[in-house]
């Protein structure tokens, strides 16, 4: 029995996946907080509890994400681009994914896979908050709508409202203005989703959009976001059952592969 773990320390949430012989047996998602090391340990223990395993059972841990070099748990750290591609291959192998669109808490990525499902190209934005999970989060707060209700609400939109600015700081004032002008909440929310989708689509077109397209990261759970991105890209999207843990799954799979190749060391 080989037990591995993937720890994805994102800017906003930490995700941990525990695998037994390459099969996901437990996972945890928790807010990152300010102590990345502490959070990763807490997350690992939660995931192990779900898997009914203990820390001593683990053979190899791979970390990824924003805080991948801060956690003291990992035997190895890997970039989130690789981890995301590995996770996508594992989860959505049968679909023949060629493009991955990922929205993180503080970044956005578009990854192109070649016909052997290896990373061929990618674009990443981690300089600007426009189009990231933070954009959605801050504007949800500005509107006083719980983040998890944004998707369902936006589906009721009947009128098109445009968010004309790029910067999140400017978008905040634009959204407050739209609200004081009496625009319906659901119309504004749909506009926000469209603004993010437009930005992502521009980035995706630079890499080249080849079917099938896989959409992951926390905001992929938002049905309104999915719809907006599908409209913008003009292709249907493949979504994982748990879009948040794709990258952590990839890290756990990489750990599993290391042991298969005999390069892993015991924790």
């Amino acid at each position, binding site marked *: 029995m080989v037990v591995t773990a993937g720890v994805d320390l994102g800017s906003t949430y930490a995700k941990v996946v525990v695998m037994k012989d390459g099969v996901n047996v437990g996972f945890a998602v928790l807010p990152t907080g300010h102590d990345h090391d502490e959070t990763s340990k807490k997350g690992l223990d939660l995931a192990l509890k779900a898997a009914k395993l203990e820390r001593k059972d683990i053979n190899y841990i791979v970390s990824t994400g924003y805080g991948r070099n801060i956690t003291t748990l990992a035997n190895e750290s890997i970039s989130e681009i690789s981890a995301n591609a590995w996770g996508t291959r594992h989860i959505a192998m049968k679909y023949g994914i060629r493009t991955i669109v990922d929205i993180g808490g503080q970044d956005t990525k578009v990854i192109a896979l070649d016909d052997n499902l290896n990373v061929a190209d990618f674009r990443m934005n981690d*300089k600007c908050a426009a189009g990231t999970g933070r954009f959605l989060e801050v504007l949800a707060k500005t509107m006083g709508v719980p983040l998890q209700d944004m998707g369902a609400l936006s589906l009721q939109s009947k009128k098109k409202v445009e968010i004309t600015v*790029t*910067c*999140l*700081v*400017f978008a905040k*004032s634009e959204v407050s203005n739209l609200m*004081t002008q009496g625009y319906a909440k659901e119309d504004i929310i749909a506009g926000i989703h469209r603004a993010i989708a437009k930005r992502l689509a521009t980035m995706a077109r630079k890499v080249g959009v080849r079917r099938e397209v896989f959409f992951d990261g926390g905001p992929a759970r938002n049905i309104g976001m999915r719809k907006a991105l599908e409209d913008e890209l003009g292709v249907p999207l493949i979504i994982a059952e748990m879009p948040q843990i794709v990258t952590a799954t990839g890290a756990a799979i990489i750990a599993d592969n290391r042991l298969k190749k005999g390069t892993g060391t015991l924790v």
Partner: protein
Amino acid sequence: MLAAGVDVGTLYTKIVLMRDDVVVAMLMERTTMDSAAQARKMLDAALKSVGEEHSAQVEVFSTGAGRKNIPFAVEQKTDYITMCTGARFLYPTARMVIDIGGQGIRIVELDDIGVMQNFRTNDKCSTGTGCFLETMSIALNVEHEIMGDLGLQAKNPCRVQSICTVFAESEVVSLVAKGRPKDEILAGLYGMVATKVSTMIRSMGLKRDVVAVGGVARSRGIIKHIEDLLKCEVLVPKYPHMVCALGAALGAASRAKRKGQNIQAQPQAPIAGTGGA
């Protein structure tokens, strides 16, 4: 003869009132949703402060992002024009004018007689604007009015890695949590703004003299950082945030004067009579 410039900025509305080519009143207020009523009220207050009536004949030019919302303005001028008019009036040798306002950074290059040659603007991104500084002043819990001088003496400026206002805000929060002194964090933020502005200037080619206007120019820390990066003195008027309104007022004054001349230049009405010389 009365002339006024109304600068409806994204954050603040400014009014400059001139009487016979002399500035007699200046007012600034936070921009509200109803900028027309606000500007009229401010103009009345300015008129009252110099002993004029509400009904006094004033030539008004408007400028700024909300310039189209001022119904009593006879002309609307873009910020690019008014900032240059105002800056050249105060510093006739100005060849580059930097305007850092609430939501925009604008840099205009002028030739030696003051004609616009080139310009750059930040357009999409809020970094370095007044919005940016207000966000940081909230994160640091310091009044943005006093931010200007705080951080000038910092010996060990923090390095702020982020480019985005939103990400820099989180970075500032974590720097505060790490116990870094406020003035060192501020010095880091000034460096960030100054880098952005000086990069824009360098892409155009530096021309002296450089004049900085707009509310953010009141921050001596930022101006000092820009001077250090450009290795060039940056001239800042006493009321940098009023320069666009001043430019508009100057424009209005010269229009009023032209109008006056036109009346004089009109042929005199024929006089009928007998005798005379």
